[in-house]
C-alpha cells in the first residue's frame, strides 16, 4: 500500500497503457467522473474509436459487434449502469463473447448520496447472477494489473469480466465545498 500517495490520474494512465497493449480499438462509455481521464485519453487516441452511449446496455451490443468485426473493446461505466445491462449480458453469455467492463463503484465507500447505495450494494451480486467474472481493485496501485488480467481472461479465454474500481480509489467528493 506504499503507492497510495500517487495522484488519481496515475492509475488511469497505467490502465490506458494496458488497454493499448491489449489492442483495444473501441471504448464505449457513459461518462462518469471516475473515468474522466481514461475517456479523455481514449478520445485523443487515433487508434481508438470512442463511443459515447445514451445507456449502458448499448455498450454491450456495441462491443459484441466490435468483436464480431475483429476488434476488441472495453466498456467504461459507473456501478449504477450495471443495473441497465443485465438483459443484454444474456447475449454475450449465450454467444460467449469476450467482454471487458471497467466499473467505477458508487454507493459503498463514504457515499454521500443514499440513492446510490442500493445499486452499489447490488452490483457484485447482479453481475454474478449474470455470469460475469468479477475482479475488484481497491488500491490504485493494483488497478492496472487487475485490468491486464481481466483483459486476458476476456479476450484469451472468451469470458465476460468486470473490473470493479472501488469508490475508495475514486474518492468521495467533499460536498461542503
Amino acid at each position, binding site marked *: 500500500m506504499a503507492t497510495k500517495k500517487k495522484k488519481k490520474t496515475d492509475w488511469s494512465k497505467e490502465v490506458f497503457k494496458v488497454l493499448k497493449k491489449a489492442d483495444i480499438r473501441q471504448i464505449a462509455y457513459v461518462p462518469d467522473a471516475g473515468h474522466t481521464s481514461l475517456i479523455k485519453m481514449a478520445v485523443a487516441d487515433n487508434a481508438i474509436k470512442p463511443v459515447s452511449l445514451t445507456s449502458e446496455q448499448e455498450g454491450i451490443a456495441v462491443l459484441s459487434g466490435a468483436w464480431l468485426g475483429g476488434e476488441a473493446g472495453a466498456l467504461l461505466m459507473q456501478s449504477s449502469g450495471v*443495473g*441497465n445491462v443485465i438483459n443484454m449480458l*444474456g447475449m454475450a453469455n*449465450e454467444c460467449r463473447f469476450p467482454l471487458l467492463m471497467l466499473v467505477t463503484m458508487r454507493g459503498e465507500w463514504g457515499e454521500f448520496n443514499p440513492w446510490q447505495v442500493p445499486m452499489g450494494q447490488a452490483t457484485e451480486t447482479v453481475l454474478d*447472477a449474470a455470469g460475469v467474472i468479477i475482479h475488484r481493485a481497491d488500491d490504485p496501485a493494483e488497478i492496472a494489473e487487475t485490468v491486464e488480467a481481466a483483459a486476458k481472461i476476456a479476450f484469451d479465454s472468451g469470458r465476460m469480466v468486470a473490473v470493479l474500481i472501488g469508490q475508495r480509489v475514486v474518492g468521495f467528493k467533499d460536498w461542503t465545498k
Partner: protein
Amino acid sequence: MGNKKSKNWHWSQDVHALFKKLGIEQVAYVPDGGLAKLINRCQADASIRSVVLTTEEEGVAQMAGAWLGGQKGVLLTQSGGVGNCINMLSMMQECRIPLLALVSMRGEWGECFPWQVPMGQSTIPALEAAKVIVHHVDQAEKVPETVHAAARLAFDSYRAVAVVISQRISGSGSRG
C-alpha cells in the same frame, strides 16, 4: 378463489378480478406471450389504464409515480425484462415505494430458445440482489392467491415484490 376446476378456467381471470378488488388502476407492460391473457383482460377493462412501454424500466418508474400520485399499479414483464430494470429498482428500495410485478418466466422449464436461458437463470438472483421479494409459483391454481399475498406485502408493507410465474404454467418457448 373459486371455480378453477372448470376446463376453461385460466389464472388470468382470477388475477384480473383480484386487481379490481385491490383497486389497481394502472397496468404497464411490454407485451409478452405468457401474460397475454391477463394483458387482454386489463386492456378490455375501462377502469384500468393499460400502458404499453418501450422497455420495462419505464414501467418501474411509472409504478413509482402511480403510488406517489395515490394510485396502485402492477408491472407485467417477461423475465428478460427484469434484466432491464435493475437500476430503476434501486429507487423502489431507496424510497421504499411499493411495487407489485408479475414476471413471466422464460429460459427455465422446457425452453427451446437457448438465448433465453442466461437471462432466465439470472432472473431470480438479479431480483433478489435488487432486494425485491420473490414469490415463485409453478402451478396455475396457485397464481391468484400468490398475487394476492404479494399485493398485500407490496402495498400494505411498502415492499417491492415480484410474483415469478413459471414457464411450466405458460408453456411459452416450447416451439421451435
